[in-house]
């Protein structure tokens, strides 16, 4: 049975990257469609009329939206590499940290790097405190998923390349090796994993892009 699988994504989006990593781990073939977010395709507007955002995974004509929803769908649909833990309690813990990263940590990092100068110190303090919680959660594990990458590692993709680009583009230092030895080591190991490495965008281009998107005097 021929399956049709395509991913509407954007090269600089860490959310699109999550889906690419997951599909690579499952060894699933798909067609990638690059979206211009300033000139969205009729296809994207058709599949995601509410938010008009990427990533959108289209499987046999059926669209799937929201990166976390897509990751769970991929894990349930294709066997092989497990992205989510099997045990319900461990799943709940993984979901908790995924939500923590998306709902609390990422907005805090954005505010720290790109927010108003006035609130900069407090924003950096907040982001640092939240990063500390994640540093503690990693403990002595190689990855959040244990010996191999799992859901939380994939969702934390923003903390590897994107955070480095944020820091270089904004001049704000957050995840230093001194303050975050475990996360810094994790970031390097994560980015070196083959499923991740081949799906990361080029760093310099990403830094330039993010700076133009978030930096002043952008409104």
């Amino acid at each position, binding site marked *: 049975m021929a399956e049709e699988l395509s991913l509407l994504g954007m090269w600089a989006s860490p959310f699109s990257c999550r889906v690419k990593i997951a599909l690579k781990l499952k060894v699933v073939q798909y067609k990638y469609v690059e979206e211009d977010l300033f000139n969205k395709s009729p296809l994207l507007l058709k599949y995601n009329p*509410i938010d008009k955002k990427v990533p959108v995974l289209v*499987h046999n004509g*059926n669209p*799937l*939206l*929201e990166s*976390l*929803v*897509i990751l*769970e*769908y991929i894990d*349930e*649909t294709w066997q092989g590499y497990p992205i989510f833990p099997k045990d*319900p*309690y461990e*799943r*709940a813990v993984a*979901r*908790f940290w995924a*939500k*923590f990263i998306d709902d609390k940590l990422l907005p805090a990092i954005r505010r720290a790097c790109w927010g108003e100068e006035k609130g900069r110190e407090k924003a950096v303090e907040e982001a640092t405190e939240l990063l500390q*919680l994640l540093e503690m959660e990693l403990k002595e594990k190689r990855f959040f998923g244990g010996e191999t990458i799992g859901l939380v590692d994939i969702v934390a993709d923003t903390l590897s390349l994107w955070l480095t680009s944020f820091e270089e583009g904004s001049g704000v230092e957050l995840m230093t090796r001194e303050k975050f030895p475990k996360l810094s080591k994790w970031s390097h190991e994560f980015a070196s994993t083959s499923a991740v490495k081949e799906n990361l965008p080029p760093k310099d281009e990403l830094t330039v892009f993010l700076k133009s998107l978030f930096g002043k005097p952008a409104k």
Partner: protein
Amino acid sequence: MADDDQVILLDFWVSLFGMRVRIALAEKEIKYEYRNEDLKNKSDLLLKMNPVNKKIPVLIHNGKPVCESLIIVQYIDEVWKDRSPFMPSDPYERAQARFWVDFIDKKVYLPSVRLATTKGEEQEAAKKEFFEVFEILEGELGDKPYFQGEAFGFVDILLSTYTCYFHTFETFGNFSMEVKFPKITAWTKRCMQRESVAKTLPDPKKMWEVVMERRKGLGLD
């Protein structure tokens, strides 16, 4: 699951987030100990079980904490999987249910709060946003008995908690849910016929009183 499971819920009676979990536990007929937290004086247990967010609800299952209401509801569904499933079995339908849960979780709360606790231009803006969101939900529900089809599920558990505030929204927003959203209104009545929902949701008049107190505190009325 064994009957000697120890299940404790740390909660606060007014919390919409807590109500989601209470409905889920009732749907699965799980026996549990309910503990009402004083949010101005949080218990040591709450701070120990949820050190990251320090918030309710927290489900403590055989001593292990599960935090965040939607995560708790999914956990309940996965552990007590032998009865009343909250999710369909088809992966695509499951993804759709998760999408709508995420949509409701992100888009209903703030406009609802603003609609009930502001006035003038700010309230008009909140009302517009509230209507936009509920129009989408009305369309998504369509002619189905429940959001996920024939069976009451995860999406219904989530949205049904807001129904105890509908009377409040109508009063302070000056509109009728039944006129604007007839399908959701019919769905509300259907949900209220379920024991889990009817026994969990407080009387809408009580919620109106809670919001009225808040409005007085803000100097609105």
